[in-house]
Every structure is written in C-alpha cells, then in structure tokens.
C-alpha cells in the first residue's frame, strides 16, 4: 500500500511540457530521491502534488484521498508538508514564531504551539537561535527553519526541494544526518537533490526525470547503472 501515488501527471506552460505522463508511488516510511538536470520538471512536480500548480492531466492520490487540483492549504491539512527551492521564510518573524505558525496547523493554544515548536527547533539543532529573526539566519539555517516549519504541521509525507542546494560544504553532513533522523522519526520523505552522492546515500528509491518525463525509477544501485540516466544526467554533470 503506497502513501502517495502519482498517475500520468502532466502539465504544460504555453506549449512547453513541464511534466508529461509521470507516474510513481511512494511507500510509507521510505525516502524517495528525485533527480534530473535543470529544467527536468522536478520542482513543477512538487508544485503539482502540493496544489501550487494545477495539473492538466493525471491524478494524485494521497493516503486514499484524490488531491489532484486541491488547494495547497487543504493538501497541507491532509498531511503533506513541503519546503521551497527558493526559500520562503517569514522574514520579519523570529525562528520560533516561524515554526509556531507550522505547529498552529494542529494546535490551537499558544503555549502548546510554542512548546511543540521548541521541540522541533531542538530537533533541527537551532534551539540557540530561536529568537533570531528569520532574515538574520544563514542559508543553511533557513533551510533547517523550513524543514522545522514543515515538520511542525506533523506531515505524513514531507517534500524537500534541494535542502542541500546553495549551502556551504561544511553544513551538508549535518543536513544529511537530519534527513536520516527525520526518516527515523517515521516521516515519509521525497527529496529533490542535485548532489548525487547524497541522493545515493539516503534514498530507498530514486525517480529520474528528464525534459519533464520519467526516464527511470528504481533502487539507487539500478539507477546508477541505468543508461538513460547516465546519458541525460550523469553524463552532463561532473560527478564529484
């Protein structure tokens, strides 16, 4: 039984097929890695699943509910959390307030929301920074902020868009450890990654996209040896 199943999903922008006929499933508790060159349609796929873009064709079933073309807030309430590639912290609020807004998705009382937010901030190792304004945090810290904020809504499935992108090398191991810690806490994860080493390390399954289409889906080892993937992606990018 899969927690998310995507069936023949498609979306065009002015004649350009951003996503075409994409299907895949995610099982509860696993990490799905999504890879593909720039413009492959990875972020569009997340926007389609979470309701930020309306699908032209296909279906998205989450936890038994058809969530295709549903509003983002309702999808969030059903249990899908996400982060944004282009970070969207609430810049004029503190880290704590940012995460509290996440925890208000399930809590009504300010004290409960605060205590839950504090626990999650501690979980992402930012507790010392709780009273800093979001705009004062570094990129890596803001990525953690977004993760914490999404986690605070108690999602069953968390979509992470390039959590390690744009942060300096030193902070990457910490973020990887965090992803694994989140998995251990029982959240199902789909993550978009540019860093092949990370994706191979953390993923249970990998979905490879190119030019808006699914070109491969399988275990990391199989993907590594898949010719289409090597052609489309590994061949064009320097694999460190």
């Amino acid at each position: 039984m899969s927690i998310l199943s995507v069936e023949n999903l498609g979306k065009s922008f002015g004649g350009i097929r951003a996503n075409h006929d994409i299907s895949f499933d995610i099982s509860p508790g696993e990490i799905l890695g999504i890879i593909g060159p720039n413009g492959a349609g990875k972020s569009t796929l997340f926007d389609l699943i979470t309701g930020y873009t309306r699908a032209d064709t296909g279906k998205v079933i989450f936890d038994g509910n058809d969530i295709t073309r549903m509003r983002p807030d309702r999808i969030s309430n059903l249990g899908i959390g996400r982060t944004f590639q282009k970070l969207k912290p609430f810049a004029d609020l503190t880290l704590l307030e940012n995460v509290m807004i996440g925890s208000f998705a399930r809590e009504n009382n300010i004290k409960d929301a605060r205590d839950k937010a504090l626990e999650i901030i501690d979980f992402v190792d930012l507790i010392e920074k709780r009273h800093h304004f979001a705009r004062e945090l570094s990129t890596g810290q803001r990525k953690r902020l977004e993760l914490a904020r999404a986690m605070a809504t108690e999602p069953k499935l968390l979509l992470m868009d390039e959590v390690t992108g744009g942060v300096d090398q030193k902070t990457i191991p910490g973020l990887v450890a965090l992803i694994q810690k989140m998995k251990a806490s029982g959240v199902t994860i789909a993550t978009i990654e540019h860093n092949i080493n990370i994706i191979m390390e953390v993923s249970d399954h990998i979905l490879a996209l190119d030019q808006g289409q699914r070109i491969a889906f399988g275990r990391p080892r199989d993907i590594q040896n898949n010719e289409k993937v090597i052609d489309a992606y590994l061949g064009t990018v320097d694999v460190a």
Partner: protein
Amino acid sequence: METVLDHARQEPVWNTNKKVIVALVALTLGLIVFPLFGPSPFYLHLMILIFMYAVMSQSWNVIAGLSGQISLGHGAFFGIGAYTSSVLYVQYGITPWLGILLGMVFAALVAIAIGIPMLRLSGHYFAIATLLIGISFQVVFQRWEMVGAASGLWIPLTEESSWLALQFHDSKAPYYYIFLAFFAVTYLLVWRLSNSKIGFRLRAVRDDYQAASSLGIDVSRYKIIAYVISAIIMAPMGSLFAQYILIVDPDRMFNLEISILVLLMTVLGGIGNIWGPLVGVAILIPISEYTRIYLGGTGGAVDLIFYGLILMLICVFRPAGLISFLPKHLLEREKHR
C-alpha cells in the same frame, strides 16, 4: 542538568517586561482620573479625539499591519457605523447602544461582501477596490433621500443628558469615559488577537502567502477575517462620533480625510506594531488641533500637504515607523539571551 530546551520552555509566552506592564497600568489609571482634575473642555475634546483616532488607526493596523492588505477607503466603515446608529435612533427611536451593535454587523457584512471577491487576489486589486468603495459610499449617501442626502440628519436633542440616548449636554466627561472604554477594550482585544493562533497565521499570510498556505492556512479566508475584524473595530467609532457631534452628513462621515488619516497615523507610528497607531495618533492629533487653534482654519489643504509629505518621508526613510526608534526590548518578547 538543565538543557537549552528546558530553559526555553520556561520562558514566558509573551512580553512580561515589568516596566512595560507598570507603565501600562499607570497610564490607564492616569487616564481614568484625568477628568477629575477638572481639565478644560478643550483638553477633554483633545483626549476624545486621540482615543477615537487611536481605535480607528488600530482598525486599519489590523487589516494592513497584521494581514498586509492596504485599504484606502477605510472611512467607509466609520460612515456605516455613524449612519446605522443615527438613522435607527432618528427614525425608529432605537437606542444608539443597539445602533452601535447593528453598525458593527453592517460593517462586517460589507467587509465580507467586498472581501470575498477582492481578497483572493494580489493586494493591488484590493487597494483599488477599497479606493472605489470609499468614494462610492460618499456618492450614494450624498444622494440618498431617506437618510437626508447631502444635508444629512440632525440627531434630536434630548431634554436632559441620557445614557440611554447617549447624549450628554453638561460635560464632555461621559463621552471621555465612553471613548476611553472603547479604546482600552479595543487595544486589549487586538493585543490578544495578535498573540493568538489567528494573529500568528495573519502575520504568516502577510509575510509570505505561499509559505503560509503550505502550512495549512487558507490565505483568502484569513484575509477576510482580518478585514471583518477591522471593520467591526471601525464602525463603533462612527456611531460614537455621531453621538458626540449630534449630526451625520456624508461630507463629515464619509470624509476621505478619515481614510487618509488612519493610514497616515499608523504608518507614521509603526505599521504592524500594536502600539504604532497610538504613537502616530498621539503625535499628529495634538499638532493638528493646536495648529487649528493658533493658525486658524487653513481649510485643510496645508494639513494635507504635510500629511502627504510625512507619508512619503516615512515610506522612504523609516518604513517601520517612529516606534522603531524605541529600544526593542520594551516592545517584543525578550530575545537574544
């Protein structure tokens, strides 16, 4: 050993700075006893205007500061309140107290009717719509015979001062206490609101509506909630002001200057901060009243030249308003320990 998390859990949920609390209690007591010292009617009038504009600007602060939507015709809700209570009293003899309540209901209905189509979209649509609303109400009331058209309605004088009819002829003190009560209650409730789930979610909508909706927040619903709350705060001031001057007419009650002033005072003091409107009002109202006395009636044009200028200067040099000059720790929860 106590961890940082344990320590963080014991922090107060909101501002408990003792100095601030003492100052607020002292201020409230001072305002309560002020009329007992027998100030001249001018000072009572000045304070009444300050309370009134403080509430009106706070109303604007709720929609603009909390939810980030600009209303350029907020005076419409003032007029709705004024006309509702006055028409009900003049034509049906209904006590203004009930009129105040019904004015709030009407204001809320208008806010919902406008908010549902306009607040789904980006803020420019809403700002333009509110500008149209502000002027449309004035146009309609100038020609609406039933409510006296352009000449408006006189509220008939009662023989004696009466709490039921909300008229006081001997002293301004009762008006002072009524406006003070509305002022205190409004600020208390808005403070509660901004420290509640709704307040947090509104700030989220203001800062980034896409991120907000990823956290389960129905963005347009929350904007409408803010607009309705804002309208409900504004309307009673119209009703009370009508009782204070005992006349309602379109030029006074739907005056576009009201919409300008509430915006200006909030931006001047500090938009999005609960004390911002009060700072703006406490500075502008006395200046405007004193210049009215010492320089005579300037026809409003000179005032407005300065209002426009101040608004532009604040937007360019100090968008967070004058309150941002105050030390931070007085205004927010204790931080950076």
